[in-house]
């Protein structure tokens, strides 16, 4: 098992190399010049040339890539074009917010998605089944942007139950250790901040969870249905085992395999799709930052940020693969 994990981690290297080349080339061949965007309407030839010199953009492509790769080997993602700060530091400051939001969204979507899926499968063709699958369809179809604003109107403006935007209320003091506010609040025994942070994450997390929840629900349902038709389930029922044990001990463990795969992929989608949620809820994460970087052609941010997200994605899927073996020891992942 350990060897397997180490092998998978080593595969990160060629994967990230491939990602870096693709992103690098795509950026350089996309029209739009970061120096031009930096200056906006007030450009002069001289200023343009100077900035491009400073950024190394006048060098041939292979030199630029070589420099980038060289820095990367030393663990240096370079400096952003717009704020001249180390890309790694900028990523570090924003990633925890996005990961916290994605984990919360994934937790909500898994919890409710799996439960709805199980109930739908075990009560196939019942009213519950139809309603929950209809709900899934609606969830997948509703634009996150609109949904977020509607939640705000109902729960913040009209009912006043939840805060509108941001991660923490102004005036709530929290000592930042990991930049995962919920974790930091627990670590510092700051219960007022914990409540405030939880209250702030509810709406964006629920908004972000609607699409994965729908997908997880459907996946669970169809996977369970297939498993429930298997002979060994009939055997288990014939043995007189309770419905609960049949469903959860025997059926679910096998049904979860494809669902866990989906969840791994959904985490990647959540990381990327957090852009809209982060924009509406003023959530200071990586999503909106990367989107702005693309608009401004901040090459260094896009390259560095993409590599970090790609690395995280690969690691999450490694966790997923290891989980297979945990769920069902008979699966030989070698």
């Amino acid at each position, binding site marked *: 098992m350990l060897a397997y994990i180490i092998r998978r981690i080593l595969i990160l290297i060629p994967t990230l190399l491939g990602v870096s080349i693709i992103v690098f080339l795509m950026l350089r061949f996309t029209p*739009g010049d970061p120096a031009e965007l930096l200056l906006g309407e007030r450009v*002069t030839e001289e200023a343009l040339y100077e900035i491009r010199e400073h950024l190394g953009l006048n060098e041939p492509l292979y030199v630029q890539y070589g420099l980038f790769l060289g820095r990367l080997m030393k663990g240096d993602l370079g400096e952003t074009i717009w704020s001249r700060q180390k890309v790694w530091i900028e990523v570090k400051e924003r990633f925890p917010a996005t990961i916290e939001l994605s984990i919360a969204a994934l937790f909500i979507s898994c919890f409710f998605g799996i439960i709805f899926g199980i109930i739908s499968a075990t009560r196939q063709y019942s009213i519950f089944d139809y309603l929950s699958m209809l709900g899934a369809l609606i969830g997948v179809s509703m634009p996150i942007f609109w949904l977020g604003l509607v939640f705000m109107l109902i729960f913040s*403006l009209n009912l006043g139950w939840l805060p509108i935007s941001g991660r923490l209320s102004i005036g709530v003091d929290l000592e930042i250790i990991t930049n995962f506010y919920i974790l930091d609040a627990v670590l510092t025994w700051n219960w007022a901040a914990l409540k405030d942070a939880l209250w702030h994450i509810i709406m964006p997390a629920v908004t972000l969870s609607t699409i994965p929840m729908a997908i997880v629900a459907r996946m669970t349902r169809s996977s369970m249905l297939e498993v429930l038709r298997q002979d060994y389930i009939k055997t288990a029922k014939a043995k007189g085992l309770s419905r609960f044990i049949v469903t959860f001990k025997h059926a679910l463990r096998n049904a979860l395999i494809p669902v866990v795969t989906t969840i791994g992929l959904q985490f990647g989608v959540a990381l990327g799709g957090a852009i809209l949620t982060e924009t509406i809820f003023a959530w200071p994460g990586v999503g909106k930052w990367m989107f702005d970087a693309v608009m401004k052609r901040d090459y260094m941010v896009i390259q560095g940020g993409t590599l970090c997200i790609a690395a995280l994605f690969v690691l999450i899927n490694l966790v997923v693969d290891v989980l297979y073996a945990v769920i069902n020891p008979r699966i030989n992942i070698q």
Partner: protein
Amino acid sequence: MLRKIVLLSVVFVFLFTGSMVAAAPKSGGTLIFGRGGDSVGLDMAYETDGNSFMIGDNIFEALVAYKDESTALEPGLAKSWDVSSDGKTYTFHLRKGVKFHDGTPFNADAAVFSIGRMMKERNVKFHGKGWKIPAQERTPEYWVSMEMDDTVGSIEATGEYTVVFNLKRVEAPFLANMGMDFASIISPTAFMKNPKEFVRNPVGTGPFKLVKWIKDDQIVLDKNKDYWDKSGGPYLDKIVFRSIPENSVRFLELKTGNIHICQFPNPADIELARKDSNLILPTQPGMNIGYLSFNHTKEPWKSNVNLRKAVAHAINSKAIVDNIYQGMGQVAKNPIPPTMWGYNEKVPGFKYDPALAKKLLTKAGFPGGKGLGEITLWSMPVPRPYNPDGQKIGVAMSADLAKVGIKAKIVSFEWGTYLKRQREQPEDMDLFQLGWTGDNGDPDNFLAVLFDGLASSSIRTQWKNEEYHKLMLQGKQTIDQAKRTEIYKKALQLIFDECPVISIAHSTVIWPAQKSVMNFKLHPTSSVRMKNVWLSK
């Protein structure tokens, strides 16, 4: 009777002083400002975005300052200045007793350091020990794009509180430039301690100082209790600048009282704000211009004045301002806003007159638009302060042109591409939308930068007119304000006579606020100054 008079006078006196007492600023409180994005960096020499300048406006000061709600100049960190008769030597006499936020003293050497570090060749002389200014890590963008290296020859601290700028050429806007954000005075000690980190740990002399910066979330400023100017503010204890990217969400936070001021709400929300008795609407005519210009490198636009004027009379600017600017703007008659000196009231602007447009088209040799073919109308893809919706405006303009027989195709690119390609004056560009927000309130900043094609090939409107070019040079080289006013008025008349560009609108800035926010005034240069702002509750 006498008793009645005395009684009434006493009552009046009480009312008068009572109302004055009610208007006296209260110290304390935390003001929360909701804005659309975070600052990029806090070293003003290197920043180009409004959100960075917004913070700089409060933690830094420059030698020269802009008066409230005006672009007229008043003493800043320099209490007075002299200009030599040949206009090439500026001597600034600095205030004494001013300290930076880190306790180090402000003096001539600090001024020399702050401005000298932007020069390519550091021809600077310190009065005391001075510092060895580190090499530039980046291009100081405003300094370079305003060609300050061609203007400033050397900077000398001739006394502990006297700085002399020796210019290479006469440049009348120089004084106004010294009031801009890039000319902010920084603490050399703080900079030298860690040059790379200064952009996130700025130290200035301003009424507020930086306390906390959570990226893309908030910047927190604390009152500078040792601020040198005791005649007024700062009154607020703390200011929190919150980044809330979505306009409607930002306005929601204002309505629910979670923030005090809302930057750039959606125009539709302005109407809601007007109806809300808890909100006030600080308003300011923007120091900007949205225009429609021509590709002067190709015919027929280059030589056919009648054709250009025909297009000008065909466009219904008022309808565009009413419907697309949603009233948050005014029709432009000149390419500089009426709040700027040098504005020419005698210029009538191009009235919307399709009949006249058709007549001029015929005079131009294109009766009913025949022979012109389909022209391209480049429309902006992103909202800017001077243009809220380039695509919609493009559609409106194209419909206006169709009415007189001109077929215009709307063309757009992604913003970076749009800016780059427009500058190249490509063959496939006929008309293009663009605009400008003024930097320093000097007409040169609009008229020379935007329309003097003979000055440089990167000027966006490549209009090559000898007389205009002469006027622009004269404007730069004349120091006397009254004479400069006449020069620019002449230039504006020439623009009307030759129609190298069609001025569409100046936008109006309205940032709704809680009514507890007192003395918040919008500034024409878009700077956000919190020094004299206080909260009534």
